[in-house]
């Protein structure tokens, strides 16, 4: 951490690029111009990635425009800060150098690193890299999985500044790094005085705290390397914080250093099957004892967001014409990996519990539902997503018999809901949105009321009421008027009322709106168990993350029309559901004309 003027790196300077996800097809490996002013030259001449890493591989980018293989070199494992890594390729565009440090620098802290997917992954988005590291160090199958081919510019940053395991955390917002770019003399050595290792904007606190030990160690070693080589000008503050935070881990880990066999690593820029992503995720999950799967998901997501931010920082200095492409790829790469696969949809042999055909409904001149078709199979947790006013509530209301469609048919459990509404209603449990409930009743009375209206006898109703109250955690409130409940509690008691007659199909309109995360987790658990037991849930939501996390199938409704439907993984493809949804719903709107918002009034 001594000041080494040569080691200062200009923010976002080092970026290297990989082909896009389908690998070989795109020769658009790019070099992002370094903006590090003088620093870039230093780097070019003497690029190094050091650390306790056994395999320090350097990935350089071949000339932009051709799909050059990425060269990975491994360096013998050294002590912290001792191992030096030579960059085999130093690529300069427009007079700037590009150096990529190998992420493996951080991989094997205490174990010989194999040619694992992790070690090849360098350019891959940081999350994958981090996970690869984790899996590698944990002795996960060292199968030489081809590296994830997508290398957003931010990765270069990550690699360069060493700790690809941590760099997403260190990546600050675009603006911050740009500021630093403008100030190449940033003192990278001393740690900042403030103790929090968290950049609040990027939310990396979550990430750091969620780090598994190994990953942390890897990150730390990489960070140490960074410190050693005096790089990381732009992220220096955060990096330093991280280093400090993780140094203890490093110390522990390096006490029993394992000699890492320098092994050749292969670069896989070619075809990467989808399952790699999954496997990485899975192995990570297996490995990470410290992080529960749930928190892991969250972690990954955070990481990727950070990576995205980093990508933004890097691309800011990239050629203008390639910027948007970079961004898009970075996003896609990052976010495709961000989520585990959705629940498996029920097999096509499962009976169709709800079939909606050609539903039309108009209010005056406004067409609310314009030919909606849905087919929900037994055992499915089916999500309907759509923007405001898309016709979700209208569709659900028609299904539950609260509204009459102008045309179209609804068949519930094989019963035509129009011809035999009462038979159809009997098997449906309903949670409407924005409708009142009989809120002058106490919670107990409301559940009793709902149960008896559904034809249950008194004893059963009482029993189920108390069971549901316990399950939803509202037993203390059962004696109070529902009018005095909070919105979330009202939702829960309404949900309980919808379930009390153990319906075959639950139709829930925005079941998680206004529900706190803890209650939402409870509700999710109840719904998943219900579905596992053969029940069927049809819910609408604005929360894409939630839908792709808990639902197995999804329908995207926009303007009263189903634009896409099917298993979640099929619908979202390589994107997140949110991206897919926004794409279908008309794309992101560029916000312009709010310049005054950025010149503050005081």
């Amino acid at each position: 951490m001594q000041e080494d003027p040569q080691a200062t790196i200009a923010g976002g300077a080092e970026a290297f690029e990989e082909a896009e996800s389908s690998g070989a097809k795109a020769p658009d490996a790019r070099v992002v111009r370094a903006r590090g002013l003088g620093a870039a030259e230093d780097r070019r001449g003497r690029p190094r990635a050091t650390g306790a890493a056994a395999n320090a591989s350097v990935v350089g980018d071949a000339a932009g425009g051709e799909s050059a293989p990425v060269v990975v070199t491994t360096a013998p494992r050294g002590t912290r800060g001792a191992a030096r890594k030579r960059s085999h390729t130093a690529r300069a565009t427009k007079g700037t150098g590009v150096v990529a440090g190998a992420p493996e620098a951080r991989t094997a802290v205490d174990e010989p690193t194999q040619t694992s997917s992790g070690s090849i992954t360098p350019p891959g988005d940081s999350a994958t890299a981090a996970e690869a590291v984790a899996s590698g160090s944990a002795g996960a199958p060292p199968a030489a999985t081809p590296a994830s081919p997508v290398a957003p510019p931010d990765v270069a940053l990550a690699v360069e500044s060493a700790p690809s395991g941590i760099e997403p955390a260190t990546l600050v917002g675009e603006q911050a790094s740009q500021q630093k770019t403008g100030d190449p003399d940033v003192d990278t050595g001393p740690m900042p005085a403030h103790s929090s290792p968290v950049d609040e904007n990027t939310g990396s606190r979550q990430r750091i705290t969620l780090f598994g030990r190994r990953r942390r160690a890897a990150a730390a070693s990489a960070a140490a390397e960074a410190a050693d080589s005096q790089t990381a000008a732009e992220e220096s503050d955060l990096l330093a914080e991280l280093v400090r935070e993780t140094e203890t881990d490093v110390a522990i880990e390096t006490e029993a250093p394992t000699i890492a066999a320098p092994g050749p690593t292969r670069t896989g820029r070619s075809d990467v099957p989808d399952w790699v992503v999954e496997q990485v995720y899975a192995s990570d999950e297996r490995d990470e004892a410290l992080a529960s799967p749930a928190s892991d998901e969250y972690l990954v997501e955070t990481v990727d967001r950070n990576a995205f931010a980093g990508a933004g920082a890097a691309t800011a200095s990239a050629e203008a014409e390639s910027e948007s492409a970079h961004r898009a790829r970075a996003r896609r790469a990052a976010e495709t990996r961000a989520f585990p696969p959705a629940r498996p949809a029920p097999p096509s042999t499962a009976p169709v519990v709800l079939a909606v055909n050609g539903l039309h409904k108009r209010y005056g001149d406004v067409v609310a539902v314009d030919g909606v078709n849905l087919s929900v199979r037994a055992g499915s947790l089916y999500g309907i997503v759509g923007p405001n006013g898309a016709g979700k509530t209208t569709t659900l209301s028609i299904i539950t018999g609260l509204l009459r469609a102008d045309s179209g048919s609804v068949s519930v459990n094989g019963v035509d809901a129009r011809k035999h509404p009462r038979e159809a209603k009997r098997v449906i449990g309903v949670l409407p949105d924005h409708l009142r409930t009989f809120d002058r009743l106490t919670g107990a009375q409301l559940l009793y009321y709902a149960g008896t209206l559904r034809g249950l006898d008194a004893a059963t109703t009482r029993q189920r009421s108390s069971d549901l109250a316990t399950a939803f955690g509202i037993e203390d409130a059962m004696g109070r008027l529902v009018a005095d409940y909070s919105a979330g509690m009202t939702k829960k008691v309404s949900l309980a009322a919808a379930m009390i007659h153990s319906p075959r199909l639950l139709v829930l309109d925005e079941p998680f709106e206004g529900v706190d995360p803890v209650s939402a987790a409870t509700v999710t658990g109840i719904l998943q168990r219900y579905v596992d037991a053969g029940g069927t849930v049809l819910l609408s939501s604005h929360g894409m993350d939630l839908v792709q996390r808990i639902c197995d199938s999804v329908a995207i409704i926009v303007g009263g029309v189903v634009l896409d439907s099917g298993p979640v993984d099929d619908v979202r493809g390589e994107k997140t559901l949110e991206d897919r949804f926004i794409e279908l719903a008309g794309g992101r709107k560029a916000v312009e004309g709010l310049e005054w918002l950025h010149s503050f009034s005081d």
Partner: protein
Amino acid sequence: MAAQFLRLKLASLGSGFRRGGWHAFGLVVGLLYTAAATVVVCWVLASARTAADGQLVRDILVIAGAVAALCFLLVPLFTRHDGTFDPRSYAALGLETRQVSVGLGVTALASVPAVVLAICALFTVVTWSAYPGAAVLAFVAAVICVPTWVLLGRLSSSVAAFALTTRRAREFSATIAVLIIVMLSPFLFFLVTLNWSRDGLKVVHAAADWLSWTPLGAVWAVGGDAADGQWGSAVLKLVVALATLAVIALAWWALAAHMMVTPDHQVQAKSYVGLGWFGRMPSRPAGVIAARSLTYWGRDSRYWVQLVLVPLFPLIMVAALLISGAVRPHDVALIPLPVICLFVGWVAHNDVAYDGTAIWLHIASGTSGVADRLGRLAPVVLIAVPVVAVGSILTVLAYGSWDVLPAVIGVSTCLVLTGLGLSSVSSALAPYAAPRPGDSAFSHPQHTGGSATLAQFLSLALTALFAGVPVAMMVLGVVQDPAWFVRCLVTGLGIGVVVFVGGVLLGAMAFNKRGPEIMGFALRNA
């Protein structure tokens, strides 16, 4: 800033017309009606200039003015407040208290009642224009009175929005209102029984004298006292009026300042043990719907407030009949009970609308129409049985002959049953907008349109039509042959049961068929 508030107010007033259709039409009619009433009042005030009895003019002016002031105080308490001109709406805008309280105070002047008040107040100057000095004082008084009462209305509506905002407080306000009405009834009785030709003037004069020293009436008495030559008392009353204005302005200022820094508060929730009515009623859909209705009648003032006015009608009718002498005093005893029964049976005619959108639960769970209809009638039946039983005996006692008992029972039972049957039909077939759940019982939805009047009129008229037969028999029994009394009982019971059963079945059919339509109605009025 005040100008901006004013623009907002004008825009808000204008927005009423933008909704178009019947709403705009209703507004136009209302405005025309108000304008006509204002013209009449002004004409009266102007023509009073030449009245011989200046004392009487002053007395009436004081009483009428005090009543108007009372309206400015009370009416906002029972109406809906949308919060557009609530000081809390401006709390987040970083305005100073002074800007908000002055701005909203000035804004209050730009309203229909304020304009009407201002015009009428200015015409009191015309009333006393025969006496130049009095006219000057009257003008000063008019200038004082307009902001006073407008600000009082503003203050009162803010208090209602602020202090009476919780559900319990709203219900409490309904209770208070009922108490006021009950306390007013002796006063009304006093007014009704007063020998106006003999004591009227004296009573009016005494009341006006007393009122003229109260904040409510002082400002209206200034001109009259001055015209009467009582300059001292006129000036003193002017001082009272000024002090009233100062107090109200200060109170408004303080309230606005307080409201801007006070968010809504939560009341402590009461906890109930057990299932209440639900534990006592049979565990079937009709039973729980009955239990729910009974619970609501107990907990929700919107329901029982409907019944509060029921005893007033027969009271007024009896008084009118006694005074007019059209019916023998002896026979008048037969009138109150049927009138009460008519309204008791009619009270549930819009029951579905009182559920608001909560009716979805019945529709989504496929509740049978019969269960829904019967369950809803339970509270009314529970009220009607003792009313008929006790009422019949009291009627007979008042009438003085047990012969009439069968007819009284026949007529009242027929009225109740017919009313219930027709209510079953009308609440499923033609619900109209009612006060929403959680609103004050006295707040009425803005746009009821013609459907409300039609439903009310039809259900009442049909009840009267069906019950007309036994009523006619009872009249025949009284004037002709007591034998009609027993026939009246049989006919009344027969018609009542038939209409009741038919009505419930018809209503059930309508409810079963019209689930989505009822839901649509509820959503429109949500």
